[in-house]
C-alpha cells in the first residue's frame, strides 16, 4: 500500500524526468504555451537537430572514450596498488590509504589552476589525454578505496593455497584475486565511468573545441540563435543521460554495491 508521502516523493522525481522527456518530443510552437500540458503530436525534430546539427554526437564519442580510458587507467594503476595495500606488507599502508582517501576530498576548484598550467605546458589542453589524466586524479583514489575494501572481503585462504602451490604474487592476482573480485571490479568500473561521464569543472576548463568537449560541456554551451532551444536541450539531455539510465536500470546491483561499499564498511 502506498501512503501519501511516498506518492508525493515519487511524483517529485518521476514528474521532472517525464516532463523533460515530453519536452524533447514536443513541437517547437507548443513549447512555450502552457496549458495544455500534453503536446498535440509527437515530433522527432529536436532529436534530428541535435544529432545532425549540433556537437552532441561528437561529444558523446568524446565522453565515451574519455570515460572508458579513465576507467582503464584508474583500474590498471589502482588494482595492483589496492592489492598491495590490502594484502602485502607495504610500510605505512594504513597512513598511505588514509592519505589516498583524504585526497578525494580535495576540491577541484583548488587544483584547477595548477592543473591548467601543467596541461598548458605539456600542450595537453583540448585533448583526450589531458582530460583522462585530470579525471584520473579523482578516479584513482576512488578506485583504490573501493577495491581495497572488496579485496579484504575475499577469504585469504584461496590466495594462501595458491601461494603454497607455487604461484607467485602476480599469478595469485591474475588467477585467484581477479576472478573472485569480478563483481567488485564491475562496481568500481561503473562508478569510475559515471564520475568521468558526469564531471564538469575540469572538462569545461580544459577543453576548447569538439576535439575533446564532453557531453556535459556541450550541453552547458548548447547554442541558441534567437531564443533558448528548450526542445533541443531536452533532447540533448536525454542523450546525455543515456549511460546513467542504462547503468541504473540494467546494472543497478553493481551500482548500489559500489555506492554503499565506500560508506557502509565498518
Amino acid at each position, binding site marked *: 500500500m502506498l501512503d501519501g508521502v511516498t506518492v508525493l516523493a515519487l511524483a517529485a522525481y518521476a514528474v521532472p524526468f517525464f516532463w523533460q522527456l515530453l519536452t524533447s518530443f514536443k513541437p517547437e510552437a507548443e513549447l512555450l504555451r502552457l496549458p495544455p500540458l500534453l503536446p498535440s503530436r509527437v515530433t522527432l525534430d529536436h532529436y534530428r537537430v541535435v544529432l545532425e546539427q549540433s556537437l552532441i554526437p561528437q561529444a558523446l564519442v568524446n565522453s565515451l572514450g574519455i570515460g572508458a580510458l579513465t576507467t582503464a587507467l584508474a583500474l590498471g594503476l589502482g588494482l595492483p596498488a589496492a592489492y598491495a595495500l590490502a594484502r602485502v606488507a607495504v610500510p605505512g599502508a594504513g597512513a598511505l590509504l588514509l592519505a589516498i582517501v583524504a585526497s578525494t576530498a580535495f576540491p577541484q576548484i583548488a587544483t584547477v589552476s595548477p592543473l*591548467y598550467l601543467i596541461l598548458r605546458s605539456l600542450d595537453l589542453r583540448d585533448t583526450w589525454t589531458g582530460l583522462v589524466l585530470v579525471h584520473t586524479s579523482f578516479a584513482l583514489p576512488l578506485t583504490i578505496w573501493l577495491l581495497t575494501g572488496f579485496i579484504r572481503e575475499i577469504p585469504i585462504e584461496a590466495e594462501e593455497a595458491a601461494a603454497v602451490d607455487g604461484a607467485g604474487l602476480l599469478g595469485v592476482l591474475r588467477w585467484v584475486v581477479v576472478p573472485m573480485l569480478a563483481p567488485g571490479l564491475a562496481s568500481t568500473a561503473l562508478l569510475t565511468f559515471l564520475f568521468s561521464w558526469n564531471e564538469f569543472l575540469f572538462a569545461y576548463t580544459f577543453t576548447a573545441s569538439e576535439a575533446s568537449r564532453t557531453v556535459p560541456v556541450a550541453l552547458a554551451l548548447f547554442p541558441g540563435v534567437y531564443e533558448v532551444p528548450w526542445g533541443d536541450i531536452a533532447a540533448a539531455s536525454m542523450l546525455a*543521460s543515456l549511460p546513467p539510465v542504462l547503468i541504473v536500470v540494467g546494472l543497478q546491483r553493481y551500482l548500489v554495491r559500489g555506492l554503499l561499499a565506500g560508506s557502509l564498511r565498518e
Partner: protein
Amino acid sequence: MSSDGRRARRLGALMVTPTLIALGVLTVFPGIWVLWLSLQHRLPIFGVSRFAGLDNYAFLARDPRFWSAASTTAVFTLASVALELGLGLAAALALSRQRGGRRVALSLLLLAWAMPTVVTAKLFEWLFHPTAGLVNVLLGGSALNWLGDPRLALPAVILADVWRTMPFVALLCYARLLTIPAELYEAARVDGAGPLAMLGRITLPLLGRILLLALLFRTLDALRAFDVMFVLTGGGPAGATETLTVYAYRSLFQMLQLGFGSAIGVVVFVLVMAVAWAYLRLGRSTWMAA
C-alpha cells in the same frame, strides 16, 4: 623466509609506486602549487608574474564580493545539507515500510543521483521557466521569475541540489535500515512502545553513524559545489547565487587572475579540510577503520 618477506615487501612497494607517482603529479603537486600560486600576482595574458606575498589574501579580507560569496556558500551548504539529511531520512523510512514498488522508487532516486549535474541544472532551468515552467503552472499559474529574482534564485538552486543529492542520503539510510533485525521492533512492541518511541529509541540511534557519515560527505560536496549554480544561474542574478567556487572560477578563467583566483580556491580547500578534520576528531573515523 625473511628473504621472501623482503621480496614481498619490495613487490608491494613496486605495485604502489605507479599510483603514488600519478597521485603525486595529479593531486599532491597541484595541491601544493596552488598555495604558491595564491601568493603571486599572475596575469598570464599580460605576462605578469611576480611574488605578492599575502596581498591576495589581504585583498580578500576587504573584498565585499568575497564575503558575499562566503555567506552564499554558508547558506547554500547549511540549507541544502539540512534538507538532504531530513528528506533523505524520511524517504528511507518511507521506502523501508513499502511493500511494492521499491524497485521503481529506488531506480527513480538513483537516476536523479546518477545523471550529470549539468543535465539536472538544465532540467530545473526549464522547470523554473517564468511562463512555460512546470513549477509556476503547478503553483496555479503564478508568474514568479525563479532564477531572475535575487530573492528566489538561491532557494531555487538549493532545491535543485537537494533533488539531486537527497537520493544518496536516502540510499545510505535505507541500506542501514535493512540491517536492523525485525525482532528488535517486535520486542519493543511487546514492551508497549509506540511508533514514535521506536523511532527515537531504536531507529535513529542505529542510524546515527550513517547519518554522521552522510553529513560529512554532503557537507564536503556542498562546500565544493560548482556545476549546479554555474549552469543554472551562472552565479546571478546580481551575484545572489555566487558561491566561493563560482567566484574563484570567474577570477581564474574569466578575469584571468590566476593568483587571486587561486587564493579563493585555497580558502575553499581550507574549509573542506577543516570540516574533514573536525569529523576525524569526532573519533568516529569510518575512513580509518576500513
